[in-house]
């Protein structure tokens, strides 16, 4: 509910899905953070026989640039949360969002497109997408890129930020970028971008949004014994959604890393079958 903008996935649809679940008798406990309010072990102690973890990949990545903590620099998560979930776009919403004139979005995925379009719709005059590879490699879906272009988002491809510049009051005033060229393919098969020496330039901006991916939140894995994770912090599961701990299942972004709603829903269904089997066989 927090990330995907209304124009992509209307909240009423999500709400209908939730109502459907409630009608089927699913109890929803809000205001509970697993790992803090309660642990997975305590859920078992309470008598639950299986636990499914679908905690998503919510931790925003930053680039560790100098000036990244200046005012006016946001993670896409923060920007989209303020804008979508907390309705900073409405008058009367209590959550503030800065009114910017020139916004730089870093990244080339769907999240970057969403952030760019949200910024544009909030009335930001110039919205730039800075991506270090070329149009070919842009990971966002093609339609998303087209929509973004239609809405007047300006694409600065083969560019990479190297430093955020600030003014005396600690606000961002620009982003120093460098031009890139594509070199040899790396292990992912995509051409590796390399900096062009001496091609530095400054892009004036009063807002910067980092949309360079997320990683899974360590809260559950760090408070639950026996849950293995991979190098990226994603939970390790088999095809049925079984984690390395008995009775604990998982799916969605928490397992795959940031992916899609459809994949997450599929993983949920598969795991539901496995959970059903697991509980039946136990008896």
């Amino acid at each position, binding site marked *: 509910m927090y990330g995907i903008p209304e124009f992509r996935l209307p909240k009423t649809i999500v709400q209908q899905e939730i109502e459907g679940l409630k009608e089927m008798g699913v109890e929803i406990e809000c*205001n509970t953070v697993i790992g*803090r309010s309660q642990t997975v072990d305590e859920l078992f102690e309470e008598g639950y026989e299986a636990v499914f973890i679908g905690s998503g990949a*919510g931790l925003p990545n930053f680039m560790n640039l100098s000036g990244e903590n200046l005012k*006016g620099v946001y993670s896409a*998560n923060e920007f989209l949360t303020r804008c979508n979930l907390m309705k900073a776009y409405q008058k009367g919403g209590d959550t*503030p969002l800065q009114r910017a004139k020139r916004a730089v979005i870093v990244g080339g995925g769907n999240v970057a497109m969403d952030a760019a379009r949200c910024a544009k719709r909030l009335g930001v005059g110039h919205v730039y997408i800075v991506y270090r590879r070329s149009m070919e490699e842009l990971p966002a879906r093609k339609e998303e890129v087209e929509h973004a272009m239609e809405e007047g988002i300006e694409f600065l491809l083969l560019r990479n930020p190297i430093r955020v510049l600030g003014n005396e009051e600690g606000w961002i005033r620009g982003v120093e970028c460098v031009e890139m060229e594509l070199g040899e393919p790396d292990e992912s098969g995509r051409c590796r971008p390399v900096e062009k020496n001496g091609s530095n330039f400054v892009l004036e901006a009063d807002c910067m949004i980092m949309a360079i991916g997320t990683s899974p939140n360590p809260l559950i894995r760090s408070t639950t014994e026996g849950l293995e994770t991979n190098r990226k912090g994603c939970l390790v599961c088999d095809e049925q959604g079984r984690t390395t701990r008995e009775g604990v299942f998982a799916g969605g972004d928490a397992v795959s890393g940031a992916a899609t709603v459809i994949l997450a829903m599929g993983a949920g269904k598969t795991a539901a079958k496995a959970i059903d089997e697991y509980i039946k066989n136990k008896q």
Partner: protein
Amino acid sequence: MYRILRKQRLNPTVTRMVIDAPKVARKAQAGQFVILRVKEDGERIPLTIADYDAMAGTVTIIYQIVGATTMLLDRLEQGDAILDFVGPLGRPSEVKHLHKVCVIGGGVGCAIAYPTAKALHENGAEVTLISGFRNKDLVILQEEFQAVSKTCHLVSDDGSTGKKGLVTDVLKELIEQGESFDEVIAIGPLVMMKFVCLLTKQYSIKTIVSMNPIMIDGTGMCGCCRLSVGGEMKFACVDGPDFDGHAVDFDEAISRSSTYREHERKAREEACNLFHKEVAS
């Protein structure tokens, strides 16, 4: 919904509420906080767990009325309920390894310092307490502080209560008199914490500060609570709120805390106007 069991005004702008929140109370430890939302579409604000009673299932919050949301919260009375109340969040303060500690509270920061001082006291540590306020009307929690400390010092900016001066004056005096502390724990305005740290650095006394940057989710999701500690980026909500004060970049934190100053001023004025209209009509 989370019912307000008791409400008590501690000074003209600071209020204490005891909230019925058994799940939070069961898990709470000193140094942790909750995030609450008063109404649908309202802002989510973090408040420290000022006290808790796991048996009774209650959590105490102490808040200063500074803006729109705390104003809205303060309009609720005993018997009313808060919409959302999530916690406990953040890492608990580390108190077990300490024997002799100086706890410093500045202003409403005393509400955050109190549970830590209490936990230290309950763990058998000797606590020296220094609390500072702008003037005598703003003093809070003195009885509570006395109950959990060996010595308790009070200072005010204008000398209207306690000694005239700053918390750093008292700390310096104690150190010069030969007092030694395993650790200093300072909680209050950023500027106060910064100056405590500058002082303790001279004497090489480890200093822990509690950082209260603007937060949204309090679970590591948004990154808006980020700060630089020892040159690394940390998220106060999951890596803190307690940090090694000598490693914190206070100037950056002070700058970031002013991000929404203009918006907050407007929201506060609007809230004031709205409440006045309601009262008038």
